[in-house]
């Protein structure tokens, strides 16, 4: 395939126009910011509004994040940030041609699309569900936003905030799932407990993991439910639905004082937190590197994650055939010395795919390994795509039959790369 032909309208969110506008805006404001060259002498405290203003301006930065998903009929949908709007596009020919993008939020707002933040999109029975994190004026603050389209993506509902705590604090890193009964699950990292503790002079480790469910197809969400205290602050979370429809969530947790390994939980109302990785990575810092989860039609859970543990940093894979009751030993994949990072995993049953980013000379490449036996043995990795410039995280998506790499890069635009061909070897 020729990736050059797969440039799609959404990828133009990378075009510099909005960035340019933002830059000009910043330029306009810069002279207003007194920037002393003074040494570290004591300075009078500056009003918080200056800080907030500078932060707000920084939210307008461009985003490489393009999130893609297939509907049941094989239609490919993308969600991408263009300026201060979320845009949704659809392709009926696997990304060769695209529908004109549809604006989700009529009122402009800052949509986080950097690092671990990206909009989410799921399409089921011709309803399009999207979620994202709205950046607010205070540093590292945000609200979890949701919208849906019930007319096949022609129009979207007015976005609603899912978090019922409306303090200007961090409710960020949303993740979205729709279960077999059409209930919509949104989970995110929430600082409300941390701020509550701070107010009474107590310390709170990390952040909390919250979720909310919509039982009316996304018209409204129920009360926010805390799933766990002490999650790691800025690593994306992953939710997938089990074969019985139960959502399962995987996230980077803080065990003990500051061990940042992973935890999982089945959201069936009775399951408890299960530890999913045992790297014993003690770090009082931000990995900015969340895990990936896939649950195949055979019900096997597949986990992929990053650890920076001293001596053996890198990306790892494990599987569980009994809902997390027993988890296989962690298997390393990718070359740590090539900065192997951003692991993804996708199960189609016996065929399981992992994808990750590596540096290869001057290029960033996406490497893929394939298992034909449900994740027990893996093929040698091969390079599925490459770019010489900046790039989004690689994503693995499926139309139910085949697996695809979905990747947006500054130089090539959006690409959908089928992974099935040449995958028969082991």
């Amino acid at each position, binding site marked *: 395939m020729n990736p050059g032909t797969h440039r799609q309208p959404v990828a133009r969110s990378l075009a510099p126009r909005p960035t340019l506008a933002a830059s000009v805006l910043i330029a306009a404001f*810069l002279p207003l910011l007194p920037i002393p060259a003074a040494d570290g002498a004591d300075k009078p405290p500056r009003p918080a509004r200056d800080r907030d203003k500078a932060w707000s301006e920084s939210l307008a930065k461009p985003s490489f994040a393009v999130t893609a998903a297939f509907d049941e009929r094989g239609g490919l949908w993308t969600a991408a940030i263009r300026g201060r709007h979320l845009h949704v596009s659809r392709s009926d020919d696997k990304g060769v041609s695209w529908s004109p993008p549809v604006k989700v939020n009529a009122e402009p707002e800052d949509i986080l699309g950097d690092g671990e933040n990206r909009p989410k999109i799921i399409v089921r029975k011709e309803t399009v569900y999207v979620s994202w994190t709205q950046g607010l004026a205070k540093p590292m603050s945000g609200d979890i936003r949701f919208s849906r389209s019930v007319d096949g993506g022609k129009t979207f509902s007015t976005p609603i905030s899912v978090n019922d705590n409306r303090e200007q604090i961090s409710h960020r890193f949303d993740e979205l799932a729709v279960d077999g009964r059409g209930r919509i699950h949104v989970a995110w990292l929430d600082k409300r407990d941390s701020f509550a503790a701070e107010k009474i002079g107590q310390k709170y480790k990390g952040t909390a993991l919250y979720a909310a469910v919509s039982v009316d197809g996304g018209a409204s969400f129920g009360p926010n439910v805390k799933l766990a205290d002490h999650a790691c602050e800025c690593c994306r979370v992953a939710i997938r639905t089990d074969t019985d429809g139960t959502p399962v969530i995987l996230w980077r947790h803080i065990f003990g004082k500051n061990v940042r390994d992973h935890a999982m939980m089945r959201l069936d109302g009775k399951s408890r937190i299960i530890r999913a990785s045992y790297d014993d990575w003690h770090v009082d810092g931000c990995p900015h590197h969340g895990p990936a989860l896939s649950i195949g039609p055979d019900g096997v859970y597949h986990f992929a994650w990053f650890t920076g543990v001293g001596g053996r940093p890198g990306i790892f894979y494990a599987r569980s055939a009994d809902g997390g009751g027993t988890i296989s030993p962690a298997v390393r994949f990718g070359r740590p010395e090539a900065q192997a990072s951003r692991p993804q995993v996708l199960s189609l049953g016996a065929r399981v795919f992992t994808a990750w980013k590596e540096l290869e000379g001057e290029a960033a490449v996406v490497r893929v390994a394939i298992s034909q036996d449900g994740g027990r043995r893996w093929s040698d990795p091969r390079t599925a795509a490459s770019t010489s410039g900046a790039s989004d995280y690689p994503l693995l998506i499926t139309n139910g039959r085949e697996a695809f790499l979905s990747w947006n890069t500054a130089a090539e635009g959006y690409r959908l790369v089928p992974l099935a061909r040449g995958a028969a070897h082991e």
Partner: protein
Amino acid sequence: MNRRNARRLSLVFAAVLLVGLQAAFSWAAGLKPFDRGSYKEIVTARSGKPFILVFWSLTCPYCREDLSLLGNLRRKYPGLDLVVVSTDSPGEAPAIAEVLREHSLDGCETWVFADPFSERLRAEVDLTWYGELPRFHLSGGDGKTRVVIGRADPGDLEAWIRANTAPGKIPAAVGNSGRNG
């Protein structure tokens, strides 16, 4: 030359203009653009003299706490050579400048990642740096560099500074607040 090429060309021009503008903004804020070769430039400029290099980001809550610690240590040890590199982007210069000012670090040598291909910038620093923050490089006069990932232990950090800062620069008596150092 068709319309598509013309459009591409105009995008390239816009991109060049954008990069230029952003670089100008960063410099205006005292932030140097951290690009290919910048890491080497920082290290070679010191020619073996001790210094602390710290990487941080606007989106890293732990980094704020360490910037606060560094601000205090810098007041306490004016001889400390401190290089502060934000892994954000030049477009965020105003927010970065605010944070540096808040922690009295705006007088240090400060940089901001100026290439959105951040993996390549990180690889020049360390092939196995995946983006974890904060990240400290404590480069001693003995030519050894100690890397600390995650928050630095304040006691350890201060001990390193005392051992590696020119003796004449260390104040004889140090107040607890560090503000009168």
